[in-house]
């Protein structure tokens, strides 16, 4: 790239050097790439931790790691996957796509954008070094419940500050996205013409700025409880550890929608393209997404049905939880209706999107089972919960991220990816992920507790099956890396539109798009507006 500065191209500026471009650059496309690559690296770090967990659980007894380390693996795996993989990947997609989708030259606050990204590696260094500290990494679970969390050794302040930094990063990113969409749309790009991915992200961004600070408050209280003598959660000093759970889940439930709404957005772009039909029920999709986000602030206590709430509270949170299934059902229905009588083709992005719809629904149903208060008394803190959130997060959020990556890779790199390898990646992942997580439903119903390195012998068979699924799933992900590297290096030339059925401003640009696009706003006609 550095020689490019000597040549003349249609831009009037110098091409920045490597350091200048990747470390100090503010170009939304480059920052998007950084986010996505970071997320991919973290995916393998978090994945390695999952492999340790599945290895230890392959058979009963303690064979490979001691319990303290095992628990720090489950804790770190969750923190890495949530804050290091799913959230940054979603922000990466937003950075790349939102300006191109709304016809803007860049994000509204490019400098802030650079900061939002570069805080992340710093925060994760803080978090990951704790594994090498005396006493090991945090092992009290990603939910950080006191008093257990307060027994963390030297790692404690590192974890708290890492969470603070991650919070700063995502709040800044969210503010940037809202400011971009509200102020930088091309003329004629009205709100109701925005692609659904953009809509999903505006709503996610509002969830982020409203909920992440509550988490920051909760962990700050933990910090002062441990070091500065406050007793927010210390019963001996008049506090209440259960209050932490309320504050945490007030953040925590909106957080799960922060993880899934961008995924909904991606799937809503992919399915119409490969069905060669406009999205069914565009407006109802927007309202359903907003409704889900709004309602997510009133259901938090379904994570704590068993702490001893008054009956009225249990009932309220049960019915509120159940009612979220209504707008979620609307979305599932609309995706299916979009495919209905479409002229469907099943390229890799579409395969991942269709698998998303089916498998995410399984996670939704197990969620409904967990939302039934009396049933949750049985399921709570068992592998059933683990199965539930992995269906919504892995076959849900992560599959949608794969769909998006395959969908937009040709646009980003200018090359078609290797479709055969992509299909292999899809089929291996889809089969193994079900071998991995479906048996965990049975384990949970049979009573196997979560976050335990050892278990009773009657759980052995399904744990072995699950572990084998886990190893195959883990290995299959290497295929994705191969596909991405190949696609960056070369391959069949991608057209502007890439996919026959793709509509929207981003597909009017060359593949790959030049560094600066839409410096003069495009004309928005109905045919280029949302698909």
């Amino acid at each position, binding site marked *: 790239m550095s020689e490019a500065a000597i040549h003349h191209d249609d831009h009037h500026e110098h091409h920045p050097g490597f350091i200048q471009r990747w470390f100090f650059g503010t170009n939304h496309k480059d920052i998007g790439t950084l986010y996505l690559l970071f997320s991919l690296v973290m995916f393998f770090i978090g994945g390695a931790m999952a492999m340790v967990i599945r290895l230890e659980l392959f058979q009963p007894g303690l064979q490979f790691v001691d319990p303290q380390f095992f628990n720090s693996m489950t804790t770190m795996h969750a923190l890495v996957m949530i804050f290091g993989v799913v959230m940054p990947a979603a922000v990466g997609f937003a950075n790349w796509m939102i300006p191109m989708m709304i016809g803007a030259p860049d994000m509204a606050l490019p400098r802030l954008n650079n900061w939002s990204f570069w805080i992340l590696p710093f925060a994760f260094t803080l978090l990951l070094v704790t594994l090498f500290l005396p006493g090991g990494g945090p092992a009290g679970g990603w939910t950080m419940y006191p008093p257990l969390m307060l027994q963390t*050794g030297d790692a404690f302040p590192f974890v708290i500050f890492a969470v603070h930094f991650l919070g700063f990063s995502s709040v800044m990113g969210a503010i940037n996205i*809202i400011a971009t969409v509200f102020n930088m749309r091309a003329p004629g790009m009205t709100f109701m013409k925005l692609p659904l991915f953009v809509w999903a992200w505006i709503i996610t961004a509002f969830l982020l700025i409203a909920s992440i600070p509550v988490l920051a408050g909760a962990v700050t209280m933990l910090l002062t409880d441990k070091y500065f003598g406050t007793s927010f959660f210390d019963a001996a000093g008049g506090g209440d550890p259960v209050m932490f759970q309320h504050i945490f889940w007030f953040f925590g439930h909106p957080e799960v929608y922060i993880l899934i709404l961008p995924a909904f957005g991606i799937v809503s772009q992919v399915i119409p393209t490969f069905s060669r039909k406009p999205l069914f029920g565009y407006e109802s999709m927007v309202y359903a997404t907003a409704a889900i986000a709004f309602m997510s602030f009133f259901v938090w206590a379904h994570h704590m049905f068993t702490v001893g709430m008054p009956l009225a509270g249990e009932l309220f949170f049960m019915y509120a939880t159940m009612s979220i299934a209504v707008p979620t059902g609307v979305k599932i229905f609309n995706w299916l209706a979009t495919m209905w009588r479409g002229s469907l083709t099943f390229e890799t992005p579409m395969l991942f999107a269709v698998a998303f719809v089916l498998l995410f629904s399984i996670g939704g149903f197990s969620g409904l089972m967990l939302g039934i208060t009396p049933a949750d008394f049985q399921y709570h803190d068992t592998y059933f919960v683990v199965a539930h959130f992995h269906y919504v997060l892995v076959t849900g959020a992560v599959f949608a991220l794969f769909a998006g990556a395959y969908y937009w890779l040709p646009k980003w790199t200018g090359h078609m990816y290797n479709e055969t390898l992509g299909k292999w990646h899809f089929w291996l992942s889809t089969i193994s992920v079900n071998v991995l997580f479906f048996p965990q439903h049975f384990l949970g119903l049979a009573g196997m507790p979560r976050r335990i390195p050892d278990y009773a012998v009657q759980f052995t068979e399904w744990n072995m099956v699950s572990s084998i699924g886990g190893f195959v799933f883990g290995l299959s992900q290497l295929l994705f890396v191969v596909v991405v590297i190949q696609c960056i290096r070369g391959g069949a030339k991608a057209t502007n539109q890439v996919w026959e059925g793709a509509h929207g401003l981003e597909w009017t640009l060359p593949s790959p798009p030049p560094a600066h696009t839409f410096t003069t706003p495009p004309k928005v006609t109905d045919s280029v507006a949302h698909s």
Partner: protein
Amino acid sequence: MSANQGKKMALKLALIPVAMFGFGYALVPLYDVFCDLTGLGGRGVQQTTADQIDPAGVDRSRQIKMEYLTSTNGDLPWAFKSLTGTTRIHPGALNEAHFVVENTSDETIVGRAIYNVSPAEASIYLSKTECFCYTEQTLEPGEKLEMPMRFVIDTELPRKIKGVTLSYTFFETSDSRGDKAAKKTDDEHAEAGSRS
């Protein structure tokens, strides 16, 4: 349309996270109010005096099964027991329960008891005339202390409540030993680490 407008909007938006950070802290007093109203966490229990209890107000038609739970928090080396087993009482009558706590270590330790009531709803109907809870107890090595607790349950107690459990937990409040306890967990970590 411009980046300038974007900056202005971003500054306004930044107020939301600031406010929500504050809201996180505001949940703490809100939680207290909520607990006081519902009686969660034993918050509804009232203080009263023996002469405020009207002997004629005893409802002999009802019996409530009372149970007393005792526990100590963490590794506090105190033996804490209830001397009163399960009792059946009448709403409106003054009752007494006895507890005994013994310091089984060779150090002087300060502790404090925290109580809770189950079902939470019952706590609003519970009044205590005498309790050892919330006052610090200092026990010399081997010292044993008997502690009475007197209470009355209001006759308005909802009919569906047939039994009430009072639970007491002793927490250590002395700091001198706190360091030692912390040190011990460090040693445990080291031990756990060396096994791997």
